[in-house]
């Protein structure tokens, strides 16, 4: 952006923040750089208004009874509400900026905007979050308490956004899908095309909703009937398997270090993928139907030459 343009826009923002409401004539008087011809001035002001909107600054306009228009910026909208951070909180914010990479450079910008200091020190533990994609539009919908509309797996969806969750390498939108009448989660990277926001203020997140546990393990997605899987895991992979299904699933620990696990399975393909991932360190002990499915799956490959 050319220097004189930046100067004009900055001055315009200050003026519109500083006075209640200004007419075009008053703006032309106070902000240097506008054309003297009223029609050209009007065209330039409209372009500037659009530029500011792209920067996230909304300039409001309203026609008066006498036919003139007045313009203003609402300070409540422009400024961040007072954060009033303690010294410890400021340190924590700076630490977050160094230790977490949210998939693009926005965090650094945001921290500077909040008045923080960015240090590029080495940290022993660093978190790289998945690519954000259309997460900004989803978050905007959350803030506005409006539903998000998008296309997903070839279907148009309207979802009341309850939470954005980063888990197992992906960002998920968790919310209430109006068409399905039920809670659903959607991979944000699989959203097709643009995201639009519906009527603001029409979404209420249910009390007691817990984002962190909103997405079950893949084998517990509500796809089919629930069965209690029983799996034996040998000593080499026992700790890894327990870490993945949870300590609650352990029914027995054997002397040699192997474990017997029992847990609910409602999505059999995901269970199969999990248990096969453990190769010959894990055996499905029961129930017989689940065990037979694994055997059948393996037999289809045991005879195949390609």
């Amino acid at each position: 952006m050319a220097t004189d343009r930046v100067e004009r826009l900055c001055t315009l923002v200050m003026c519109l923040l500083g006075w209640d409401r200004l007419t075009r004539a008053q703006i032309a008087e106070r902000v240097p750089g506008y054309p003297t011809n009223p029609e050209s001035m009007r065209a330039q002001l409209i372009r500037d208004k659009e530029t500011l909107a792209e920067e996230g600054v909304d300039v409001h306009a309203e026609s008066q009874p006498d036919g003139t228009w007045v313009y203003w910026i609402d300070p409540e909208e422009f400024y961040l509400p007072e954060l009033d951070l303690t010294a410890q909180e400021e340190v924590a914010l700076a630490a977050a900026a160094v230790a977490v990479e949210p998939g693009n450079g926005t965090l650094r910008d945001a921290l500077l905007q909040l008045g923080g200091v960015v240090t590029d020190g080495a940290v022993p533990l660093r978190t790289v979050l998945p690519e954000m994609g259309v997460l900004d539009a989803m978050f905007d919908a959350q803030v506005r308490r409006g539903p998000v509309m998008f296309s997903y797996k070839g279907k148009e969806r309207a979802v009341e956004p309850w939470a954005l969750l980063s888990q197992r390498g992906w960002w998920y939108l968790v919310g209430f899908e109006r068409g399905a009448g039920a809670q659903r989660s959607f991979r944000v990277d699989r959203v097709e095309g643009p995201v639009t926001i519906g009527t603001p203020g029409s979404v209420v997140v249910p009390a007691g909703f817990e984002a962190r546990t909103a997405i079950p393990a893949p084998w517990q997605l509500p796809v089919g009937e629930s069965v209690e899987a029983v799996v034996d895991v040998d000593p080499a992979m026992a700790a890894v398997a327990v870490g993945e299904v949870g300590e609650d699933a352990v029914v027995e620990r054997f002397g040699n270090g192997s474990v017997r696990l029992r847990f609910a399975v409602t999505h059999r393909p995901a269970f199969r993928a999990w248990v096969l991932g453990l190769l010959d360190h894990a055996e499905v002990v029961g129930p017989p139907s689940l065990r037979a499915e694994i055997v059948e799956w393996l037999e289809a490959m045991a005879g195949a030459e390609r």
Partner: protein
Amino acid sequence: MRRVLAMIPWVVARDGATVDEIAAQFGTTAQTVQRDLSLAMCCEVGANLDHVAMWVDDDGRVYAAPGAYFDRPRRLTPAQGVAVLAAVDALRQVPGGDSSALSSLAGKLAAALGAASNAVAVVLDEPPLLEVVRAAIERGEQLHLDYYSASRDELTERDVDPLRVVAFGNTWQLEAWCHLMGDRHRIRAARLTGVPIEHHADAGPLEAFEPAEHALRVVLDLTADQRWVAERHPHEVLASRSDGAMRVALWAAGPAWLERLLLRLGPDAVIVEPENVAVLRRDAARRLLGLYGRGD
């Protein structure tokens, strides 16, 4: 424009920052900072109001008069807002942080952004040895560890210089220099067991991680339902059909990695090349069937 609007409140909040400090923070040159500030200083806003009162002294320090414009931070954009909330929530999951400050910070940020307190959440895995490894890195100590190698399906004992632990895809991974292999490795922290800390090590400079060069190239025909493979692993699409089926090339990290992938894909995945991979899949399936009393 965005930089100027961000810079002014930052400078006002930090009376006496030098031009060089400001340039370093905003990733720009001292010259650009001078220009941006002079721009802000000469934004005359009419006779009735003070203009932004800022000046630079002989030492290059910048001062602002009370009541200057833009003395408070602007609202964050949605992208900035979600990034900040995600970063703070991620840090809350990491051992060693100031959890009470992080949790009150998260609440204040969410409120200021107009979001619910649990609007954005990050779930990271919790390897039992994460804290031990972190401490070793901070003290520059070498680790002697048992590690389950997923690509070869074997337990190995190694001496490593831990360099850093990075959560990629919500999973903690240790980057370390391995003395046994004589190269840099990335190890899933959840697969570490027994880590007695030994003597001091010189970790050396950090370099970008590079994947193994000896990886085997495998070409597979996948159905539309098997596209998850392409989402999970680095690949090259060789051909794709309108029904979603595609031919991809993947780089196998090791035989066990490949066995695991092929067994999960099942009989519908067609192995195009190399031919001996079909034998590897068949033998792996037979080996696992042995567990079920169906082996040969």
